[in-house]
């Protein structure tokens, strides 16, 4: 598992994917937090980082599948899968290794935004008067959400041998999981059904974490969804139909 993780991670560093992902994430969120007048903290006047956690998931929605799209699709396409799956590695450790590499990249992209937290800390009046609990919860939520997205992206790369198909599929499923369930409230369904549907989406759980409330049920939700895509990925790979 560590060998797979290390190879993927070195691949990210060598191909500059890691740095590009980090810079893009930092830049887009930075623009929204500090520059665009409609969203800027400086214009808004409150010492809070809500923008980061509103924009963050949307950026990750594209960034993560872009990074994970090659995970298995490229291996299948070039035939290296045949070598990878004849190494003394279980299918689990291969999937886990790739997943962790993707997740590490999410952390690598997200962590530099801590400098925004620091800037906010200094800007607050009086200094340090920020909702640190909410921000910590939001970061945890963002990482868990990143984990789910990496799981989806890994799965998407396992179902096809075209990286582009994998990317599009990954973005779509991420979008669906994040936003679509919330939008279902407009459907003419009973309230309980709608509540259940809303709970199936990432949005509701991410939102409650952003408030700084770390509910055990939310954690369970994120872990379960990630594991679900894990299992699905492995099932796809075991069929060896490529």
């Amino acid at each position, binding site marked *: 598992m560590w060998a797979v993780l290390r190879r993927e991670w070195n691949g990210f560093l060598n191909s500059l994917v890691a740095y590009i992902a980090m810079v893009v994430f930092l830049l887009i969120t930075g623009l929204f937090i500090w520059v665009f007048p409609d969203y800027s903290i400086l214009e808004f006047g409150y010492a809070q980082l809500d923008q980061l956690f509103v924009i963050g998931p949307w950026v990750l929605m594209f960034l993560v599948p872009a990074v994970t799209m090659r995970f298995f699709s490229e291996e299948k396409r070039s035939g290296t899968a045949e070598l990878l799956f004849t190494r*003394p590695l279980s299918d689990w450790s291969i999937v886990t290794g790739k997943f962790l590499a993707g997740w590490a990249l999410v952390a690598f992209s997200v962590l530099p935004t801590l400098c925004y937290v620091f800037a906010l800390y200094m800007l607050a009046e009086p200094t340090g008067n920020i909702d640190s609990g909410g921000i910590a919860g939001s970061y945890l939520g963002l990482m868990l959400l990143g984990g789910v997205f990496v799981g989806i992206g890994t799965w998407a790369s396992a179902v096809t041998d075209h990286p582009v198909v994998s990317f599009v599929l990954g973005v779509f499923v991420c979008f669906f999981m994040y936003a679509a369930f919330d939008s279902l409230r407009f459907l003419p369904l009973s309230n309980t059904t709608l509540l259940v549907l809303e709970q199936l989406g990432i949005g509701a759980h991410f939102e409650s974490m952003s408030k700084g409330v770390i509910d055990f049920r939310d954690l369970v939700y994120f872990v379960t969804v990630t594991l679900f895509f894990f299992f699905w990925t492995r099932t796809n790979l075991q069929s060896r139909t490529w």
Partner: protein
Amino acid sequence: MDGLNFQIPGGQVVGLLGPNGAGKSTTMKMLTSYLAPSSGKARICGHDVVENALESRRMLGYLPESNPLYTDMYVREYLLSVAAYYRLDQARNRVERMIEQTGLGPEAHKRIGQLSKGYRQRVGLAQALVHDPKVLILDEPTSGLDPNQLVGIRELIVGLASDKTVLLSTHIMQEVEAMCQRVMIIHQGRLVADDTMAALKAHAGRVRLELEWDQEPNWAALKQIPGIASVDPRDSRAAVVEAADEKDLRSVLFDWSVQEGLRVLRMEVPAGRNLEAVFRELTRTIPGGQAASSHQSKAS
């Protein structure tokens, strides 16, 4: 695959032959536990390839047919990453030795994508051998190489695999003759021959001769000579003569020609034909064999 059953003792180099689509690669993929057989068992060094896949995979080095490599990695980096899969002690030393043994020294700092086909094949061999496996499975290790590279890779395999059990597939007969002690020929998923090189050559039996005279011989009389199975005229004064058994017909044919008043301009045994003839004979689809092939089960 249909009722394929074989055993390879340690240290033997075995050539797996068969026409395209005969099941060579499928057999190898099952031995490397990449594909699971729908029925039947296979063991590598006593480890079942399905139940004990990780152990059996540890025992073997595999070079797939297309020699897939991560083209954006550097040679040394790639081999180190492979070594990490096997958790080798002293991986760095081992990789350096592999680079030296496979003659990759001058290319080791390059990206794999920049290498020529011959060097890529060396990288492919190096990755299969880096963990010093007991068993080596090579799927057409010399396909697509130019004659110089081909000889180089062949020598490399023979040199590096001296203490290993090797199963290699190929269509090139000379390669089998040069490298293998034993040959298995499979056709439509079935084993149609499994013998030592020497025995198979003897089985090839029928001596073929290419003859050329100064004028047209009496074809009918030629066919009447005892011991001749067939005469295949190539033009009015040349023919390929096939003997019915292993007897050397050269002197008989020479005497006959003298009697007929013919001068023999050329008489030779075509080189390297024997095994090819056997191969063709065994892998021709026999009409009578169709009943047998209708109930064969493909494991792929």
